[in-house]
């Protein structure tokens, strides 16, 4: 811990300089860069599933097209709106922390968490509907009659039909995996946002917690970016 004999009392406006950094600028940049490296690994984490999606969709475009018709377009739309708004409140929270407005930060973080929870609520409604329609992959999955008929028309051989029916279900495997992993990131994000709100309330951080809130913001916006791609890929196929 960096202490000097001249500064016996802590200056609330200045962050503490940890001994392994040259200056505050470097300390701040190191935290940001660390989060960016983590986000780079997160991109790779989602890439695997997105690559699987790209392969199966290119093999059976019709199956994916039919599958996406069962997604609730307007619920997804509402959720995108909620998530974009939560990114705005988070961005304004970061701005407030840069300006040293502690109370505002707490309120913006709470707003962000509430919007995040609203997103999860809508997601839960969607999951319930899909599970009730036997669209959850596994033993109880049923290909709706209309879709089975449509797939029969585009399949030349019984073998191809078998593959297309399997890939129809694969669309739902990918849908549930991608959205569940995304929802997990949301849950983690909400928990951290709430913890940070409480720590901000308690004046836990030096320097108004600017670095900490900025880094948290990066994570939150990243989860938003992932959804920006998931929404058209899963809900909006034609």
């Amino acid at each position, binding site marked *: 811990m960096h202490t000097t004999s001249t500064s016996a009392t802590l200056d609330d406006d200045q962050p503490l300089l940890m001994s392994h950094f040259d200056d505050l600028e470097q300390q701040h*940049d190191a935290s940001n860069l660390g989060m960016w490296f983590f986000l*780079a690994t997160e991109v790779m984490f989602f890439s695997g599933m997105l690559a699987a999606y*790209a*392969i199966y969709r290119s093999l059976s475009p019709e199956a994916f097209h039919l599958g996406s018709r069962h997604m609730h377009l307007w619920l997804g739309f509402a959720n995108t*709106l909620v998530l974009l708004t939560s990114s705005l409140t988070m961005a304004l929270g970061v701005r407030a922390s*840069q300006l040293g407005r502690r109370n505002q930060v707490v309120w913006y973080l709470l707003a962000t968490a509430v919007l995040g929870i609203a997103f999860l609520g809508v997601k839960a409604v969607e999951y319930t509907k899909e599970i009730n329609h036997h669209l959850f992959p596994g033993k109880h999955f049923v290909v709706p009659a209309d879709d089975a008929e449509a797939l029969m028309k585009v399949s030349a051989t019984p073998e191809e039909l078998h593959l297309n029916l399997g890939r129809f279900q694969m669309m739902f495997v990918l849908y549930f995996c991608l959205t569940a992993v995304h929802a997990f990131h949301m849950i983690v994000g909400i928990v951290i946002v709430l913890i940070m709100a409480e720590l901000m309330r308690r004046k836990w951080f030096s320097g108004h917690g600017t670095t900490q809130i900025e880094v948290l913001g990066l994570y939150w916006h990243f989860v938003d970016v992932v959804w920006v791609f998931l929404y*058209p890929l899963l809900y*909006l*196929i034609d």
Partner: protein
Amino acid sequence: MTHHIIAVRTYLIIYFALIAFLFATVGASFLPSTAPHLLIAMTIATIKAVLIILFFMHVYYSNRLTWIVAVASLLWLTLLLAFTLADYFSRGWLDIPGK
């Protein structure tokens, strides 16, 4: 420590631009099936992502090292998709016995 503090106005402009693009992407999904749906949807999604990354995530005002890490993560994604899809698309091109 220098921070570039972005104006509230800028944040709001970006936010409303994102909402506008959201409406655009939903609207585009109702176009007749002859339209290049995937291309349009992915172009709009990329624009939205770039706006979020540059302004909400402050990359536009960040140092070069942050730029490199941000761009590099997309490079890995591109490599993965490009090589995997190239493999799947080209499998039938050569008539190799026992393949």
